[in-house]
């Protein structure tokens, strides 16, 4: 039985020619064993079968009945390698081009994958949704979209709607100073969390109990890396840390969770228990939209229907018809959200689309190189093709042969690309400012992409040349009267035009991105933040009225001391420093009206609190009226508004508004304020967003100070004074110019990324052009000889070659410049304040492309122009 089975196996793997007699031998040995009563004859048979599995004896792996095919393949391979070795420039240009193209493509695609992966790592990520707030105008159109909603939204929706399986509500804090032992940390990533938070956002708990860690007020849960920074490697549960600013409190560490990855729209370093929120009255208040509300919906919930139901519930609490809830998937927030007050800067789908286009362009440009060059050298291969056909090659065999060449080139290019991707990853991570992956080789999607696009590349780049080359007529070729076909030349020209157009678009695009960036960094934003530092005054910690008075007088004398110093020009206070991100401001959706001028009007109005010196310190300008005055008692009920506010309410004449009354809310007698000044619009944040309609309220004790210097000695003095007045708190200051510069980090990255990849694409295209020029000049050398004999000068010859290339550049310009306009105009439209489309840049990019092409072609053309006519024509 065992023997029969072994025999089946043996028959399967043994070479059919050898099987009968070897099996005969085995059989004979077996019968011999049986006769001599040797032990375990069947086992011995099996061992013999096992030992017969040898390369010399097994069935050929390519079980092809027509072994001629294998021989032909071997021949193709040999010929391909020889051809590639002979045409060294052709091979090098193609391999380098394909390698650069594939590397760029792979890396960009990893970045895109990363950007699209935001928030997808949570369990049930598909069912996580955020509830946000829409402000409507009279006609029910959406005027403002606010990512935050009010606290009760979460639990009410959970109570009323069965689709809501769970919810969590979280608030993001601004900077908080924390002391632990001797160290002081400035934390910007603290958010509040209730006990549901970790059930929706499924971060792994390392220490502490998921169920109870948020039960007590003043409990804090840290991420692993923060815990390490504070306490080293010990388990910190039970340890305490002190909050210094903005209020004093002692926090108890109740847990540690894994680090939050980069790809989430809501990053944090610490979770403060929800119960420690100071503003307890927010829990029931529908008007304070200060919270991010997340829902876990039941599987297969219809989002549209759910949103309608949620709004029915919402109407029971907010029935003014001027607001609505918006429910959207958490996974879409990072790339698709256009809400204000997002917890952190978002990605941009447009940038992603741009990068997809660039990466595909680069790859195609590299493939085009191969197509162009291999059809250009077709003339040299023509005789080979002719001869093969004469001795009986079929067309499809020739196609396979040339595909084989494309395969080899692409394979080498792909391998180089893979190693290049691995080597360049650190630089790429730096370029985009995120660590997307650590290693190319261990990242399966990248490897998968590489293989897929290597195969696609082989087919796309190999197929056309293969068809052209295999289509030669043997008689014409072997007679020697052979020219490249018309259609082939046109195709090649079209491809060169394509490459020039892409180069043109990328160069112009890069310059435009940088120009917009430069515009934003240097634009007149309406205030002067030069030589202005900002510093946060610590909380008073006053428990009684008297203590608070004492604190205020200290604060005042601190400011007074600074003002009296000659090196300090002004000291102002505000609630929200200029140069923060878009959500760093207060706002209200309460409707406002100006008595006697307007009806009550909805839409978000932004509010900032300033003292009487703030305008002076940052150089804000008034276009009508006056600034706050500390000495005037009546100013506590005064406000200023900005130009945009007037525009929103269609009030053309600022002077007319001075002294009028602005009223908040619906109640007849409450919320009245006198307008004393109209502020000229200025950009408090990036130029991406419009200046919002803003109301400035007086707050003489505003705690974020801006200090304008006359000279550098001031800084030393401020620090000295700080040490006198606030000895407990570190002097932590910054320059406003730096705050503004930070706003454009993402744009700068985009510009740099664009620059690098545009540069690479242009290099590939120029490589191809160089190769093409050399082949064309070689092919046209006889023509040059004849022209020279007939009296053409070197210059005229060069002229002929250049007209050939410059015609192509001209066509490329006709295609490229309109495309630049369409693409870059749509990109510029992302910015509220943008440069006009710079036509001059498009044309100068054209000149750049022209010059680059000129230089690339120059060597080859001058070489061919210098040729001695006698030498060329001698063989004829």
């Amino acid at each position, binding site marked *: 039985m065992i023997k029969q089975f072994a025999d089946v196996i043996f028959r399967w793997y043994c070479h059919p020619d*050898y099987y*009968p*007699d*070897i*099996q*005969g*031998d*085995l*059989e*004979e*040995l077996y*019968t*011999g064993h049986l006769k001599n009563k040797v032990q375990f004859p069947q086992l011995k048979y099996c*061992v*013999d079968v*096992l*030992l*017969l*599995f*040898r*390369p*010399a*004896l097994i069935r050929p792996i390519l079980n092809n009945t027509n072994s001629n095919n294998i021989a032909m393949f071997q021949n193709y391979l040999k010929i391909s390698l020889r051809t590639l070795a002979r045409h060294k420039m052709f091979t090098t240009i193609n391999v380098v081009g394909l390698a650069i193209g594939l590397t760029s493509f792979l890396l960009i695609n990893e970045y895109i994958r990363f950007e699209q992966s935001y928030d997808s790592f949570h369990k049930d990520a598909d069912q996580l949704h955020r509830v946000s707030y829409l402000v409507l105008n009279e006609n029910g159109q959406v005027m403002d979209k606010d990512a935050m909603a009010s606290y009760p939204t979460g639990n009410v929706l959970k109570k009323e709607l069965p689709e809501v399986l769970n919810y969590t509500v979280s608030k993001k804090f601004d900077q908080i100073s924390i002391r632990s032992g001797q160290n002081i940390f400035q934390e910007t990533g603290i958010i509040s969390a209730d006990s549901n938070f970790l059930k929706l956002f499924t971060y792994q708990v390392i220490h502490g109990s998921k169920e109870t860690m948020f039960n007590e007020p003043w409990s804090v849960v840290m991420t692993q890396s923060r815990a390490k920074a504070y306490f080293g490697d010990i388990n910190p549960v039970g340890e305490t840390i002190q909050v210094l600013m903005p209020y004093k409190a002692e926090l108890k560490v109740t847990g540690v969770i894994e680090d939050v990855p980069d790809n989430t729209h809501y990053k944090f370093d610490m979770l403060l228990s929800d119960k420690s929120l100071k503003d307890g009255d927010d829990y029931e208040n529908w008007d304070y939209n200060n919270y991010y509300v997340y829902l876990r919906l039941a599987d297969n919930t219809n989002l549209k229907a759910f949103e309608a139901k949620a709004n029915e519930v919402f109407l029971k609490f907010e029935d003014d018809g001027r607001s609505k809830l918006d429910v959207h998937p958490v996974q879409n927030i990072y790339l698709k959200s256009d809400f204000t007050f997002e917890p952190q800067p978002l990605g941009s789908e447009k940038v992603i689309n741009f990068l997809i286009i660039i990466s595909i362009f680069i790859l195609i440009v590299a493939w085009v190189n191969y197509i162009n060059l291999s059809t250009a050298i077709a003339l040299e291969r023509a005789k080979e093709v002719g001869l093969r056909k004469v001795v009986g090659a079929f067309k499809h065999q020739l196609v396979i042969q040339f595909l084989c060449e494309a395969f080899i080139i692409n394979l080498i290019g792909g391998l180089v690309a893979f190693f290049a991707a691995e080597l360049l990853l650190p630089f790429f991570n730096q370029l985009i400012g995120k660590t997307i992956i650590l290693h190319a080789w261990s990242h399966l999607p990248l490897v998968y992409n590489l293989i897929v696009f290597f195969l696609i590349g082989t087919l796309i780049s190999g197929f056309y040349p293969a068809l052209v080359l295999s289509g030669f007529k043997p008689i014409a070729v072997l007679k020697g009267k052979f020219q490249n076909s018309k259609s082939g030349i046109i195709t090649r020209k079209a491809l060169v035009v394509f490459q020039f157009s892409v180069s043109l678009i990328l160069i112009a695009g890069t310059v435009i991105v940088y120009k917009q960036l430069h515009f934003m960094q240097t634009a007149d934003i309406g205030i002067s933040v030069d030589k202005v530092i900002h510093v946060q005054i610590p909380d008073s910690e006053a428990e009684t009225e008297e203590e608070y008075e004492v604190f205020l007088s200290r604060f005042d004398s601190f400011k007074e001391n600074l003002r009296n110093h000659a090196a300090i020009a002004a000291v102002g206070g505000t609630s929200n420093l200029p140069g923060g991100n878009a959500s760093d401001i207060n706002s209200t959706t309460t409707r406002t009206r100006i008595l006697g001028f307007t009806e009550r009007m909805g839409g978000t109005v932004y509010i900032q609190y300033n003292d009487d010196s703030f305008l002076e310190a940052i150089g804000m300008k008034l276009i009508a009226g006056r600034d706050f005055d500390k000495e005037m008692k009546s100013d506590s009920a005064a406000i200023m508004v900005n130009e945009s506010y007037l525009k929103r309410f269609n009030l053309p004449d600022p002077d007319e508004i001075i002294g009028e009354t602005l009223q908040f809310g619906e109640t007849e007698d409450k919320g009245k304020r006198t307008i004393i000044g109209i502020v000229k619009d200025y950009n408090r944040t990036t130029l991406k967003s419009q200046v919002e309609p803003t109301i400035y309220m007086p707050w003489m004790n505003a705690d974020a100070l801006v200090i304008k210097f006359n000279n550098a000695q001031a800084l030393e003095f401020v620090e000295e004074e700080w040490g006198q007045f606030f000895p407990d708190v570190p002097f932590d200051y910054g320059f406003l110019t730096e705050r503004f510069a930070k706003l454009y980090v993402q744009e700068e990255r985009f510009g740099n990324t664009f620059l690098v990849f545009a540069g690479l694409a242009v290099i590939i295209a120029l490589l191809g052009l160089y190769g093409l020029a050399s082949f064309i000049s070689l092919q046209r050398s006889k023509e040059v000889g004849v022209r020279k004999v007939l009296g053409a000068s070197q210059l005229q010859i060069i002229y002929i070659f250049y007209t050939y290339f410059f015609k192509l550049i001209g066509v490329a310009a006709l295609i490229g410049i309109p495309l630049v306009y369409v693409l870059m105009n749509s990109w510029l439209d992302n910015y509220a304040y943008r440069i006009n489309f710079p036509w001059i840049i498009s044309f100068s990019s054209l000149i750049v492309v022209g010059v680059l092409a000129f230089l690339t072609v120059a060597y080859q053309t001058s070489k061919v122009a210098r040729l001695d006519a006698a030498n060329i024509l001698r063989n004829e």
Partner: protein
Amino acid sequence: MKRYQLGEFEEIVLLTVGVLYNEAYGVAIKGEIESRLKRKVSVGAMQSALRRMEKKGFIDSRLGEVNRLRGGKPKRYFTITAYGRDALQHSQDVRLSLWNDIPGVALDL
């Protein structure tokens, strides 16, 4: 040496094929080697050596009679070719010349 690539085991098999002359088939060769060299030979090792040498042209083969003992399978007889003989000769010559060149004292142990 490069002209005749003959491994040690191959050489033994080849010589045995010669010894057995017209009766050199799988089991016989195996038995002969085992009895003369007092070592076990696996069918696999021997067969692959035979086929390799056949490919190189050192030996020829012909199919023989069918035998009930062998489950109705024919024997395959191997014979040395002229090329095979040259290879053996060459190998012997090389060894002989080496032997001859060893100074007498070197082996006086």
